[in-house]
């Protein structure tokens, strides 16, 4: 009887890894924060690295972005990647693409020079390759199309990046229709070859709804010049109790007071202030 029991145990133990394990792979990745990964997929710019470090410091979770295809993975052991936020790493682990998770085995600091020329992972590193005059024109058309989406609210922020002639849509929306509308608008622009839609639809939980309403009310009182009837310069994204504030303000003081106001919203856990400060003179030049 004991022998039979032991045999069953051996079979179960032996079979378990083969049954549950994902495929172990090694790849080059960028360690991002979950906030910036949702916002800025695509070329690794200085502003993106700054965003990764800042939001991680403010409490966002670290995630891995596989360089060759921009796939975002949440990790099982944050300790293994936390010191590499804003940098490149070479990782080995069991990656499950559909679930967007990876069970890490090893994480090593990496350098762009270690990635062979011609490797798809290099595409996101050379930012200048994506900025031809033709792509600038296409970029502007896509930007305009997305700006004019009728159902965007103060609680949506849709962003995009261009990789060659492909558009990667990112950001958050409270409406299904915006996700589809953004896709079709971007796809309809001449010169766009492919659209990857990574826009996340936000849940409409009672707490998040209350946080949205309170956050907007507070900012409408203190930052009224940035809100008008058909839109606003400031966008308030709320997800699972966290507030991400985006958009443009004219002074650093306005950005800082926005954080203070939003920190006083009841039931909100974290405030990630990603407001860009654009003084009026700079705005005119732009």
């Amino acid at each position, binding site marked *: 009887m004991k022998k039979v029991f032991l045999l069953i145990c051996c079979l179960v133990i032996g079979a378990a890894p083969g049954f549950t394990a994902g495929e172990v792979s090694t790849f080059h990745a960028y360690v991002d924060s979950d906030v910036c990964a949702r*916002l*800025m*997929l*695509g*070329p690794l*710019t*200085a*502003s*993106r690295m700054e*965003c990764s470090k800042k939001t991680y410091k403010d409490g966002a979770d670290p995630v891995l972005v596989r360089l060759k295809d921009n796939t975002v993975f949440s990790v099982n052991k944050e300790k293994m990647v936390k010191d590499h936020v804003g940098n490149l790493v070479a990782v080995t682990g069991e990656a499950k693409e559909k679930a967007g998770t990876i069970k890490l085995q090893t994480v090593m600091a990496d350098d762009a020079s270690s990635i062979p020329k011609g490797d798809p992972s290099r595409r996101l590193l050379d*930012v200048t390759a994506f900025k031809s005059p033709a792509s600038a024109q296409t*970029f502007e058309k896509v*930007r*305009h199309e*997305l*700006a*004019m989406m*009728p*159902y965007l*609210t103060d*609680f949506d922020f*849709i*962003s*995009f*990046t*261009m990789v060659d002639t492909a558009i990667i849509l*990112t950001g958050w929306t*409270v*409406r*299904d*229709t915006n996700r*589809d509308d953004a896709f079709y608008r971007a796809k309809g622009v001449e010169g766009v070859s492919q659209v990857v839609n990574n826009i996340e639809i936000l849940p*409409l939980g*009672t707490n998040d*709804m*209350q946080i*949205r*309403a*309170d956050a907007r009310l507070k900012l*409408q009182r203190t930052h009224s010049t940035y*809100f*008008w*009837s*058909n*839109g*606003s*310069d400031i966008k308030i994204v709320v997800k699972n109790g966290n507030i991400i504030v*985006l*958009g*443009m303000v004219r002074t650093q003081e306005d950005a800082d007071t926005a954080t203070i106001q939003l920190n006083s919203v009841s039931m909100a856990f974290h405030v990630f202030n*990603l407001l*860009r400060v654009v003084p009026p003179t700079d705005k005119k030049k732009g």
Partner: protein
Amino acid sequence: MFNSYRVLLIIGRFSLVVVLLAVVFGCSQKPAETTTPSVKKIPAGSEYSGFLKDYSNLKPNPNPDGISMVYVRDEAQKNLRSYFAIVVDPVEVYIATDADASKVSEDSRKALTNYFQHALIQAVSDAFPPVDHAGPLTLRLRTAIVGVDVGGQVAAGDTPSDAKPFQHALNIGKVGVEMELVDSVTGERIAAGVDRANLGDGAEVGAEHFSKVEKFAAARIAFDDWAGRVRAFLDSAHEITGADADRVDKAYQPYGNDK
């Protein structure tokens, strides 16, 4: 021992009172949550049904293909753009002034209102996700079908065996739709409309699940079209034009594209 007994007695009585209160309170609350609107009648000589509290600020719609009379609040802090979720209320029915209310059965009213409520939810849901209860940033859509009349008798052979026929069909040939969007928390009106489009000419609702019966296809199409017009009204109210369009365009800068 005596003290313990008294304490137990007091706790027992207190529990009984709490249970009784809960039962009484629960019973008294339940009907309020599950109110089913019954059929009402358009007052004689009146242009409107009285479903909307105020008709005075309705203006003719500049779009001739849209809802006939509309109102859209345009205050900076409280307009349609301030909301993005919706509670779709059960649809109310107003029968024509000269219609015989006794011939409108509860089953036929339900068949008509359930279908239209479902059609409305379908029409608006991707723009205004439907939610179950009132809350912040949530609109309440109140709608009434106005001018329903009693139709002819439904013959037994007119419907398939799985669609229970009504004794009298409901005629929606001269029906209009009145609707308003209110703040679900405060009840303040945000938008309203009265639609006179005669989409159901000759259409009747004569059985449960009428939408699946070919004979009543015209009614299904009419309800779908009315729901579509409510959505079109919302779409047009969200269009960005003129100086606002310039400002919206300038304000939008995606992230992650600067070096």
